[in-house]
């Protein structure tokens, strides 16, 4: 069976919500970062699917997904630098150890 747009959109939406779920439930900072990457990749899949099946004449979706990949890398670089610094001061990358600031 040839996969159609519905299959792709199903996968990308599922990936998005898996990412959101992971972001809310995981307690390890690196895993939370991975969940965000899942969200961004689901968006990439969305763009590619729309570009191929709905708007085949246009290139906007492809460009957008390339930019998203680049920005995601930049974001991950800054986030990991911050997490390393957090590890130095807290000796852990569990979010629950970082709880100095509260209501």
């Amino acid at each position: 069976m040839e996969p159609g747009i519905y299959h792709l959109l199903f996968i990308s939406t599922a990936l998005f919500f898996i990412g959101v779920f992971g972001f809310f439930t995981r307690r390890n900072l690196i895993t939370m970062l991975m969940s965000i990457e899942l969200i961004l990749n689901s968006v990439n899949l969305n763009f590619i699917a729309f570009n191929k099946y709905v708007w085949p004449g246009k290139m906007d979706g492809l460009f957008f997904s390339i930019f998203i990949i680049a920005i995601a890398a930049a974001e991950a670089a800054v986030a990991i630098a911050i997490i390393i610094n957090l590890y130095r001061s807290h000796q852990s990358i569990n979010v629950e150890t970082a709880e100095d600031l509260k209501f």
Partner: protein
Amino acid sequence: MNEFFHLMKTELIVTIIIFLLLFIKLGKDIKNEQLLPFIQFVLLVNFIASFFYNVDGSLFGDMFYTNSLIAFEKSILSLGVYLISLLSTDWLKKTSHLPEFFILMLSALLGMCLLLSSGNLLIFYLSLELATIPIAAMSNFDLIKKRSSEAAMKMILSSAFSSGILLFGISLIYGITGTIVFAELPKLADGSSLFIMAFVFLFSSFAFKLSIVPFHLWTADVYEGSPIAVTSFLSVVSKAAIAFVLLTVLSGVFQPLQDIWYVLIVVLSVASMLIGNLFALRQENIKRFLAFSSIAQVGFILVGVSGNSNIGISSVVYFMLIYMVSNLAAFGVASVISEQTGKENISDYKGLYKNNPLLGWVLALALFSLAGIPPTAGFFGKLYLLTTGGAKGSYLFISIAALNMIISLFYYLRVVRAVFIDKNDQPIEKLTIQLPVKLALFVCSVSIVLLGIMGWIFDHIESLH
């Protein structure tokens, strides 16, 4: 070619300053005491230059456009950055990475300028990221403080998550309309439920960055943990940029959905004002207090946004200018006290007036303006916001906003009472205020008094579009 230099003037100047600082960093070590006045001077030049040679037009196939209102908004942002560089002189002189701090801050400013001029969802997304990622790195600038790294972690995770949500909304919009150009979107917006869902995703990301209530949870923590220079940048410049873009996006791109977003904004505005006020009542730390007060102020800004008219746009821009000087004056005083004594709690401010009358008066003036008491500019700003919101005819909404001004009066005056009336056995001793800080506090206080009285400023903003 000439047009390119004219239209992208602000962005080019900011880029040149960034490269200049990079080369300074590469060269031999210059003491902070010598470098800082130079940077402040360059930022002043940037602010003054933003008033000249402004032309309307667009570049790169409408990806980038500018007009006189956008140029004015950019000069407000440049003014904010200049004032922050003056106000945090104490902290900046001590920091070991001065050029890097300004490189990051100016990168964020560059992102915000591009954000204001963006005419395309791709540029919009790229510049939004350019405006937020450096701020996360900046909030980690007190490298040895535990709180600073925690604040940076919260900032980068929540902003990455919110940009993920934004992207999902953009991808749905692309799927429905097949275009990412702002000018083409209103014609193609069909109001289908999928489009409304895409709009809600996009709006919630805005709400994250503006810290509108259900999405405000990161605000207080990040504000408290970051160095005060970063806190004031976040709460003033970044907030102003996002509010301006929200205005253009809502009244331009999503005009066909205005019945839907009006309801959304009314609900979120009431929630922001109430929650921001109620939480501000019980805060002890001055930065946390100002964080919740800024959440409440965003509620008032949304009242102006809900007006959805030209006069609404001018009143929001006018209010942002007033909010910027008032908030910067408050942060400036907090920064002087926190740098020289390490005290950040409101209870430490008791009896501040006794030894530091100048700081006491400036803080009182700033808080009066934030609360909206008549002779100060804050009153006029809020008056315009409520008038434009009231033009829509929902008087219940405006009454709730007015009632919230009274609640806010209670906690702003609590600080003023601590400064002037409350007795304290060990009040803060006499602090030395450096010349740049004095200058910036003077500029802020004079603007707080004069901006409201000089009505031609509002007329000028009104004439820009």
